[in-house]
């Protein structure tokens, strides 16, 4: 748990930096990374929040395969259609 929190804090810091740079491809990667940590920790709602963020930036960056994968994950959880 502590390790997860430390990991998330690190990712969050990198997310903020990526927002400053308006780096959509990196934002889609980092939000997904954070989502996977939360998913592994059993926090589905928080994970889906981060998967959604990742999905939006993947769509904007034109990262088609990543966007499709994220849509599948969110659909599996009933958060997309």
């Amino acid at each position, binding site marked *: 748990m502590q390790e997860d929190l430390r990991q998330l804090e690190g990712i969050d810091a990198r997310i903020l930096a990526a927002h400053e740079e308006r780096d959509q491809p990196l934002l889609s990667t980092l939000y997904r990374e954070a989502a996977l940590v939360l998913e592994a920790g059993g926090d589905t709602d*928080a994970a889906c*929040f981060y*998967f959604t963020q990742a*999905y939006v930036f993947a*769509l*904007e960056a034109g990262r088609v395969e990543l966007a499709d994968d994220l849509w599948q994950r969110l659909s599996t959880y009933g958060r997309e*259609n």
Partner: protein
Amino acid sequence: MKPPDFSVLARVKAPVEQARGLPNAFYTDSELFEQERARVFNANWACVGFAKDVAEPGDATPVTFLGAPLLVVRARDGVVRVFQNVCRHRGMILVEEPRKLKGVIRCPYHAWCYELDGRLRATPHVGGPGKNIDPSINRSELGLVEVRSKVWMDLVFVNLSGDAPDFEDHAGELIDRWAEFSEKNLMHCGPESSFKLDVQCNWKLAVENYCESYHLPWVHPGLNSYSRLEDHYNIVERGRFSGQGTTVYDPRLDEGGRRFPKFADLPSKWNTAAEYVALYPNVLLGVHRDQTFAIVLEPVGVHRTIEHVGIYYAEPGVAENNWDDLRRKNAQQWRVIFEEDIFVVEGMQRGRQAPGFDGGKFSPAMDDPTHCFHHWVASQFET
């Protein structure tokens, strides 16, 4: 200010021999300018810009036309489309500056995402954090509002009311008249081939001045040296367009005799002819054997117009470095000619403040193209 008496428009629509021009209020009254937004521009096919500004799939450029926020997009299939530049969620402006879109259009407010064909692709957190769906949100009903549009001669035309006759019905006679140019790939060739002029006059005065040759000897003495008044002819198509042509187009840009390449397969008429037509309401066009240009009139206010000029050539090779100097010289020459018109259109604008001015009297021989435009504008106020 008291609204104008539209019964005076009957005098505008009289035959040119008896007619008077549009009353002063059509050039000075803000309320009438607002009415023109609906009656003249939204109800017809207004030109809002150049397709070259969205040259590649994924290119998007915002255009504000008479206050309406529009977004011109070249979709992935290469087709240019125009949408209202407004998110269907809370009405936020989607795109503020020209952009190359690698993926979707993402609203900067709540990140609703739209495909380049307008479909609503994603509604993040619309059902709560991490829940992107809601029973009341039907994405198929909430795509971008598309505006009827048409690209012709690399110009983007829109019909905001949605119910104008097809573009081909409005411009068909001009498309046919210039069929040889209509089919061509017009090459823009670079930033020196675009410029803007900010003119303190009502947009209609720019149209009226452009479509007559009567002023050439006095306002454009340089042109008159090789294209005399008697070499010009009127072009009048009631309810559609008007302008003038010349039979002696003979540009002399280069002392060494270099000339731009000609458009292929033009009928022999175009060896020496050139035509200049105002397609109503707001685009001024010129066609020549070696180039075309368009002046898109942006009515900024009742007293102010921005003229957006784009020059096009016949072959992609004209974009190469060896033509740089001639393209610059050509653009500068056109700029000088268009700038020569500024004092007359601004002078006419100031003249419209004269209380007794009756709209003016037309020369049947020389002002028929101008009267044709006045007649068309008056007709837009009939109902």
